[in-house]
Each structure stands twice: as C-alpha cells, then as structure tokens.
C-alpha cells in the first residue's frame, strides 16, 4: 500500500460524504411531491404520463397493492425485453447485423436486467444491436433502479407514517424517481463522460489499419448514455463484454472516480432521506456510519492483498513492488491507468453496492482480495448498497439489531418510534434468510452436478469460488462475475436466472409486509428506556450483527474457496 493509494481512497470517501446530504434533501423533496428547481420543466411531462397511464397521484396503496403493481411492472418489463432480444434481427439500429439472441440466453438476460442484477452471459459487442442496448437495456437500467428506490421509499414510509393504511403510490414513486432523479443526472454526467472519451454514436464498428499494417476492428456505439445510468442506478451491465475495464467505458482516472461516486451516491443519499423522513437526521447518519465502517474495512483489505501481489509471480523474477514508475502489485486482469488502489477500491465499491460493474477482473484477484467482493455480496449488499435495496436491506438488519438489543435488556424493541413485534421480526428473518438459502443451495447443487462443474475455468479451490461467486452475485442482484465461469449454458442460464428472481422478489415481498405492518402502528414517544439508535453504540451493535449473521452463514463456504486458496498460493501449490 502506498500513501498515494490511501489518499485516493480517502478522497473518494470524502466526495461521497459531501454528496449525501444535498442529494438526500433533493430526493426527499422529490418523493414528497414538493417543488424542486426542475419542477417547471418536468411537472408537465409527469402529469402527461399519469394521464395516459390512468394513474391517480393521490391514490395511496396498501402494501399488497404496492407490491402487486411492482410485480406487474416487472413482468411487463421482462416480456418486452425478452421480445426485443429475440426480435433484434428485425429491428432498427443494428449496423453489425446481429440476429436473435438464443432463447435461454434471452431468458437469463431479461431477468438479469429487470431485477437490477445485470449479470451478463453474453458479450455486448458480439451479441446485441444498438436498439437492444438502448430501448431494451438502457430502459431497464433506469426503471429497475427506480423500482428499487420506490420500494425503499415505501419501506421508509412504514417508519415515518403513523396509523397509515398505505405506503404511497408505486407508479408515482417510479415516475418521479426516473424523471427527477435519474434522467437529469444521466444527461449532465453523460455529456461529461463523452467529453472524456466515451463514444456516443450509431455508426458501425470502425475498421482500422494499425501502424504496423494489421487489421483492427474497433467496436463503438451509444456507450455514454448507457454507461452513466449503469453506474448511477447500480446496474453494472456493461455495453461491452469487458465492462468498465474497456477504455471506451472508462477512459481515464477521472471517469473512474466519477463512476465510483455515482455507484454510492443514491445509496448514501437514501440514508439521509430516511433520517429526514423520520425527523431525525442522525438516524440516517448512524446507518451511514455503519456502512462506512464496513466499506473502509473491505477496501483496505482488498487493497492490501492486491498491492502485496502474487508470490508465485515474484518467484519468477518479476518486480511487483510499487515505485514512482509503476503501481506494482497483482496486475493480472488490470489496466495501467487504474493500477492497484483504484482497482481494489472499485471492486469493493461495486460489490458493496449492487452495481457489479468491474474495472478489473475479480477472478484474477489474489484470494483474500477476491474474498472481499464475495463477502460484500453475501452480506446482502447493504453497504450503501443497490439503489433502494441497500437501504431496505440495512433497515432489516437494524430491526434484527434492536430486536437483539431488546432481548438483552428484556424490553419490547423500538426503532425510530415504532414497536418491533413478533410478526415484524419473523418477516425480517424470512427476508434475510432468502439470501443464504439461494446462494448456498444453488452452489451446492452446481458443485455436485457434472454440468455445473464443467463450466469452471480454474481448477482447485478457485473453481469452487467461481461457482460460489456466480450464485452470490446473482442472488444479491450484483451482476459482477468471477468471469472464468462459463455462464452461457442451459444449466447456468436457468439456475442463475432463478437465483436473480428469488434474490430480488423473495426479499421484497416480506420486506413490504414489514413496511405495511409498521405503517399501521402508532408512533411511540421515546422514553428513558428506549435504546438510542442514533448513537455510536448502535453503530457498533449493528455492525456486529451484520458480521455475525453473514459470517456464521457463509464462513464454511468461504473456507473451501478463497481461504484454502490463499494458503495454497503462499505455499506455491498450483492447480
């Protein structure tokens, strides 16, 4: 680790901290329907959308109806995306003449983008037309993100409202989020990205004759417009196969920094929205603090082990030491402009959130650095997290934390003025258990079946890590990969697709049930016996609960993968 590397991590953290409160304030006003500076431009469009769709803004939805609307929208989105993928050969903006996407792959891809996972079993530049990228994938980059944020708003209203039947209106939350939050930022930052070198063209791939006279085909496309929402909506599905390692998706260190900030921005801001809505911003900062602790620990672990490099490469006489002339460290699967610190940081950020974009290949990370993204996903991506899903995931853990604290002192637990009772805790447990159930269940299945094992690219414990990573990433709706795993097989297209759907909707339904239950309750005034959830002690308890729950559940599986591999690497055992 170098001083400069640590300064870069600190700089990134400081920017996220600075963004949190202003964006949180803006989003609170948007979702409350208050006036913001964009209202004069966007309000007429918003009203037109409601009119055409037959939406009554004042219609307050019960949690079941809110969830039903969300499911219906997801099903419609899945059907349309599947159709576009299958029919792209007949659709416009297809200069490379790509034909229909195979049915299994189309199924997997459609689920992948509807659930905000953006796992990719295909290479973008070798499979998809510009029409599919724009009208198919870019649209879901927006609306799957808006769906997640809408759900988080519904959950927050469960805490902030008293004796209320409804949680808000899904259609209104979805529309406001897309129009007022996601689109304006995408336009502004998208133009910045183009200025910095990202292509935005409908022209065909470029045929170049290199200086030495060789032929080189250079894939281009409408990249920037998709790239910005890929990050801001924590989607992570690259325009190209190589994702944000590709110089066209991530031209330089500044675009890299902006991309990482975009990944965390909404997740961080939502903690502030929560604080504002429950009328105590410190409640939000307590969640922000917990997330920051977990983020920094992960980033430093990943950075440390990547900077240390691979001893088996050092043994061959290769210089992996950092100096003024090179970043050093484990450079397999990394690009020079990012080096070690920014690659390790990006890997931590993209898996803390449910983004899944990569600027280096996690499969080639040293074992314990590769463990960090795995653990981040297995904790449920609550460290700033996916847009929306990170906050409601963290709030579910907060409920568990106050429940445990309540057991210790023998009082009915309360959280931000709501009594947490048996039903709430049961539903919370259900929402949390879905994750290990799907990850470990599918991993066990795939590891024991011949067509599960035949897809792995690296032998030994690393092969097991590839499978574990695949199901962790899809269940948690991340979408990054240990890319060696060949996912485009019937077995993996189906099982990974199911894992994505289970991970998304299996968690949302009990979460909404908790929100509905909490919303119906009265607000209780805090008393001397109330455990203060805006304190440092709460941050410590919440962090411990997250690590104990996640750690106990996944430690055995992690031991078989990255931990065994780490000791193999040190002892020079190769596979």
């Amino acid at each position, binding site marked *: 680790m170098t001083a400069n590397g640590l300064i870069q991590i600190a700089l990134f953290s400081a920017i996220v901290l600075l963004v949190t409160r202003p964006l949180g304030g803006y989003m609170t006003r948007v979702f409350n329907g208050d006036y913001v500076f964009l209202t004069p431009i966007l309000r007429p469009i918003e009203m037109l959308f409601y009119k055409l769709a037959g939406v009554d803004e004042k219609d307050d939805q019960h949690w079941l109806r809110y969830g039903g609307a969300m499911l219906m929208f997801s099903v419609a989105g899945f059907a349309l995306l599947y159709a576009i993928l299958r029919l792209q050969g007949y659709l416009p903006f297809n200069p490379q003449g790509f034909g229909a996407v195979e049915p299994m792959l189309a199924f997997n891809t459609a689920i992948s983008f509807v659930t905000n996972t953006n796992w990719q079993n295909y290479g973008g530049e070798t499979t998809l037309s510009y029409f599919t990228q724009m009208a198919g994938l870019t649209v879901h980059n927006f609306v799957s993100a808006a769906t997640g944020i809408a759900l988080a708003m519904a959950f927050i209203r469960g805490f902030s409202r008293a004796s209320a039947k409804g949680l808000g209106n899904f259609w209104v939350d979805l529309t406001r989020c897309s129009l007022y939050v996601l689109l304006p930022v995408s336009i502004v930052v998208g133009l910045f990205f183009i200025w910095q070198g990202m292509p935005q*063209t409908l022209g065909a791939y470029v045929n170049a004759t290199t200086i030495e006279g060789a032929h*080189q085909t250079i894939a281009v496309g409408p990249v920037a417009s998709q790239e910005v929402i890929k990050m801001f909506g924590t989607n992570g599905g690259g325009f190209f196969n190589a994702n944000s390692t590709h110089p066209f998706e991530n031209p330089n260190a500044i675009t890299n920094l902006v991309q990482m900030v975009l990944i965390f921005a909404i997740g961080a801001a939502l903690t502030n929205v929560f604080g504002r809505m429950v009328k105590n911003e410190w409640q939000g900062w307590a969640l922000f603090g917990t997330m920051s602790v977990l983020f920094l620990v992960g980033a430093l672990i990943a950075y440390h082990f990547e900077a240390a490099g691979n001893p088996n490469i050092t043994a061959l006489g*290769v*210089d992996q030491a950092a100096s003024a002339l090179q970043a050093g460290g484990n450079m397999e*699967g*990394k690009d020079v402009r990012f080096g070690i610190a920014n690659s390790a940081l990006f890997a931590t950020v993209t898996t803390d959130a449910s983004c899944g974009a990569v600027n280096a290949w996690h499969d080639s990370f040293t074992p314990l650095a590769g463990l960090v993204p795995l653990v981040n996903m297995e904790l449920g991506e609550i460290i700033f997290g996916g847009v929306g899903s990170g906050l409601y995931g963290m709030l579910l853990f907060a409920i568990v934390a106050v429940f445990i604290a309540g057991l210790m002192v023998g009082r009915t637990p309360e959280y931000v003025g709501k009594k947490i009772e048996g039903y709430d805790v049961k539903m919370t447990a259900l929402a949390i258990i879905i994750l290990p159930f799907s990850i470990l269940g599918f991993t066990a299945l795939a590891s024991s079946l011949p067509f599960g094992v035949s897809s792995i690219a690296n032998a030994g414990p690393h092969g097991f890590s590839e499978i574990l990573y695949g199901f962790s990433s899809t269940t948690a709706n991340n979408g990054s990969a240990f890319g060696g795993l060949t996912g485009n097989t019937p077995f993996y297209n189906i099982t990974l697709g199911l894992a994505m759907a289970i991970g998304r909707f299996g968690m949302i339904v009990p979460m909404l049930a908790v929100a509905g239950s909490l919303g119906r309750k009265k607000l209780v005034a805090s008393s001397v016996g109330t455990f203060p959830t805006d304190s440092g002690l709460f941050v410590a308890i919440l962090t411990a609960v997250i690590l104990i729950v996640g750690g106990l559940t996944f430690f055995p599986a992690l031991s078989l993968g990255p931990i065994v591999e780490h000791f193999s690497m040190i002892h020079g055992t190769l596979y």
Partner: protein
Amino acid sequence: MLKDIRPAIVLLALFTLLLGLAYPLGMTRVAGALFPHQAEGSLIEKNGIVIGSEIIGQTFTGEKYFHGRPSATTGTDDKGNSIALPNNAANSMGSNLGPTNKALIERIKNEVEKLKAENPNAAIPVDMVTTSASGFDPDITPAAALFQMPRVAKARNLDPAKVEALINQFTKPRTLGIIGEPAVNVLKLNMALDSEAVK
C-alpha cells in the same frame, strides 16, 4: 390489482420511448455537435486512413516500436474456430486466470524468459507479463517503457537519452497529482517516434 395493468403497460411504453429512444438519440445528436471526435471513438487518421483509436491499445511486434501489454482477447479464424487474437477491440475480455492457476504461472514464465533475453540487466515490470483487463490497455507503466527503451533506441539508431526524453514527454502523470496512476500511451509514443524518424 387489475387496475394496475394499464399503468404497467402504458408507463413501460412511455419510458421506453423517453429513456430508450429520445434520451440516447438526443445524447447522440448533442455529442455529435459538441464532441464529435470523442463521440466517434477518438479515432486517429493518417492520410485518410483510420489507424486506430487514441485510447484503444493495438498490437506492436517490431523491434523499433514500444510494445503494449499482453492481451487475452480472441477472434475467430476462417473456419469459425476461436483463436488467440491480441488487442481485438471487437471482443473485449481478460484472461480470468486465478492466482494459483498453472496456466497463468507457465505463461508468465515464458514471457519472463523472452524479456530477460531482451534486457538482462533490468527488473521486469509486472505490467509487461500480465494480461490487461480490457484486452487492449492503451497504456504501459513508465517502468515498462524504460525497460524497452534500450531495444527501441538500438533498433532506430537513436540516442537513448532522446528516447527517454520522449518517454518522459508522453508519460501522463496522475490527474491533479493524486488521481490514477502514471501511464504512457503506447500508440502516441510510437507515432511520435515515427515522426521523429522523418525529421
């Protein structure tokens, strides 16, 4: 429940029109007006022929050129079989080899032997023996450029000090002195060498 079917379908259609067509097509128009060079892929032309993109690595094999990093990209041959095709900018990918994979260590061993023959006195910078993430990293580290400097100077009959000065000139430092890592753009450096030769 049934009354939510209409908004599901209508809003999806409206969002597809706004976010899937109007937004990207509008961005394309604006980009074409404001930043036409970047929007087309930062292409470099020489005598009317596109020779590559400023920010996409390309393959150099000649002694008189600086070489980019190893690449794991593949292409297809005439029969449709997958073959190694380094710096294939139409099929981006990394090696995805894990740190304890025999194939990785063997590959690096071979690279090391070749490089030791070229410059036996210097330590081998790690970026010269590891495949890049994109498969066409446009850059090498200053260490890798300096490692290759004697070979290039000899092949071109140039004063090594002059080549080193060019390397320094084309080393892009960290942005604001803090962000990113120092990098040398291989294509730009090689083009500068060629125009140096013409002078």
